[in-house]
């Protein structure tokens, strides 16, 4: 697939510029949030723990609280870019190592959910659109309406009470060890996490497919003798990918944030449950770090989706609106 390089580098540069700008501002906001808390920053950071002189000095040093504001930010940002996210108060460890230890579970959970969402959501949307107005479509619509209203914590509790407690098919907590055991332990959590997003992807897919099915070039393709299944694949589904890809950014953000809920409900040791724990225990450096990671991940995923846009819709490079 050779492609003229023409406008692409300019497009890339523009997007990268915007993303860097956004990341700078969001990181600044995350950093500055410390000072939004009522009262003295030092007191806030130390809250609940005995304010020994060493502890206070350590906090001041970590955040550079004696220095001017901007310097504090740059000092903090510099640390972040070198992987130094501060020290956790509750664990007396580097935040960085805390996070990397738990990253695996969260990533596995999000990945399993993403696969489930993509497969089931796309299938539901495609089937619904191809049978629009008939029983299968009604079923899809009802299902998506219901699922959209089941938040992950409700799903978690209901699934646990049915499949773990009543039927004993799945474990109630823990992430397991080893690939298969992991998958087994994460089955219910990823299902709980996925339900609302399956509804979202299903609806968006169905709507995009219906839009495309009505386009003239689909009828033209049929008129040239191509089998219906081929036309649906090459011309309907292919063209519907655009709107579907657009929501994937939202999807990832939602997954990351909701994982906090699912991890807490199932007793998994991931980033999400760490976040909740840290809020509970007033361990601000950890909270700050996780918030920063989630927001950054969100921005980066959106960037990737944007960069893939020209592949999906060649007209976006030329600057024409996609519809």
């Amino acid at each position, binding site marked *: 697939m*050779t492609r003229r390089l023409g406008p692409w580098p300019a497009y890339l540069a523009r997007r990268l510029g915007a993303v860097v700008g956004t990341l700078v501002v969001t990181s600044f906001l995350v950093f500055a949030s410390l000072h939004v808390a009522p009262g003295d920053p030092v007191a806030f950071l130390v809250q609940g723990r005995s304010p020994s002189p060493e502890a206070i000095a350590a906090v001041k040093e970590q955040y550079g609280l004696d220095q001017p504001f901007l310097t504090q930010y740059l000092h903090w940002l510099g640390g972040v870019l070198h992987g130094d996210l501060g020290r956790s108060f509750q664990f007396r460890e580097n935040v960085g190592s805390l996070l990397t230890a738990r990253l695996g579970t969260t990533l596995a959970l999000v990945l399993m959910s993403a696969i489930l969402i993509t497969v089931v959501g796309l299938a539901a949307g495609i089937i619904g659109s191809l049978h629009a107005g008939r029983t299968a479509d009604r079923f899809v619509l009802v299902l998506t309406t219901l699922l959209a209203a089941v938040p992950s914590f409700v799903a978690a509790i209901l699934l646990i009470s049915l499949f773990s407690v009543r039927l004993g098919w799945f474990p109630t907590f823990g992430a397991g060890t080893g690939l298969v055991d992991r998958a087994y332990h994460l089955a219910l959590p990823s299902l709980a996490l996925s339900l609302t997003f399956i509804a979202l992807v299903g609806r968006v897919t169905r709507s995009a497919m219906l839009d495309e099915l009505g*386009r*003239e*070039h689909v*009828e*033209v*393709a*049929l*008129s*040239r*003798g*191509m*089998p219906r299944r*081929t036309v649906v694949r*090459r*011309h309907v589904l*292919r*063209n519907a990918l655009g709107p579907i890809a657009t929501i994937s950014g939202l999807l990832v953000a939602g997954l990351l944030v909701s994982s906090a809920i699912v991890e807490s409900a199932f007793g998994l040791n991931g980033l999400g449950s760490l976040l909740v724990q840290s809020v509970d225990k007033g361990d601000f450096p950890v909270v700050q770090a996780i918030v920063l990671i989630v927001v950054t991940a969100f921005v980066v995923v959106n960037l990737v989706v944007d960069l893939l846009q020209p592949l*999906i*819709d*060649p*007209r976006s490079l*030329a600057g*024409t609106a996609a519809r």
Partner: protein
Amino acid sequence: MSLLTLTDVSLRMPALARRPLLDAVDLTVDRGEVVGLVGESGSGKSLTARAILGLLPPGAEVGGTIEVDGLDVLSAGRDDLRRLRSSQVSMVFQDPRAAINPLRRIGDYLTESVRLARGGDGRAATARALELLEAVGLPDPVRHLRQFPHELSGGMLQRVMIAGALMGDPSLLLCDEPTTALDVTTQAEIVSILARLQAEQGLGMLFITHDLDLAGAICDRVYVMYAGRVVETARATELFADPRHPYTAGLLASTPGVDRNHDRLVPVCGSPLSLLENPPGCAFAPRCDFAVDGLCANEPPALVQEGDRAVRCLRSAEISPGRSARAHTVRSAR
């Protein structure tokens, strides 16, 4: 045996319309012949073309027979239909930008029907595509194959569509208002390309348009449709010289032509029949200057053959709509 024969074709869509969308349509196209199908929007001409390809809207009830090269389209199975569409009949659509998938390359568009409908070889298909792009007069075929539709102008895209229509070596070409979406200069180019290719390859061509002059320019025979029925058919020259149906005469009188003398253009008053109306008699009666009260609106006129002409008008023998239309002053609308 004619290449294309429509016999008593009717199409109803009870959910949408009270009147039949096509009613007792008889039409033939022979090999190497260019036949025009003229009518305003809503006359059923596009529907006829789609019916020939077996592309009927859902909920349509069809009657009569459509035969292409011996194949009965309306009762054909899936495989027969696929063969029909990929190698016997092709259609050139009105708006190339809507008809070609904007997200795929021109080369894909051209070769996909051959590769996927007939399981043909990709390389051979590409070679043929290049040949045809040249045949339609595009300057840089190799580059065009890799381009996307938005990189080409409307006129160039229409040429691409014509090339695409010829990829399967069809014997019948349907052109559904192929120039309506284009500007006048481009129209002339496209029409000349179509005429040339038709002559070169001996194709049968059904040329659908609302422009009677355009039909007259390239067609051997013309059918005129109104409200789903054929109201007149004749050889093009005879039709223009001596229209026998008031509607045809009205159309001729209302279109400006360089070679005709008009004091003023005489529009056909009134508006086309809506889908909800289903009058028992002649559908054109409300707008017809020659309609007789009590007769035309109540009795359905039959299509009457006279040699190689046919007219659907109860009064056509008595009146000379052609001459009278030319002598008309403006009448008040009914």
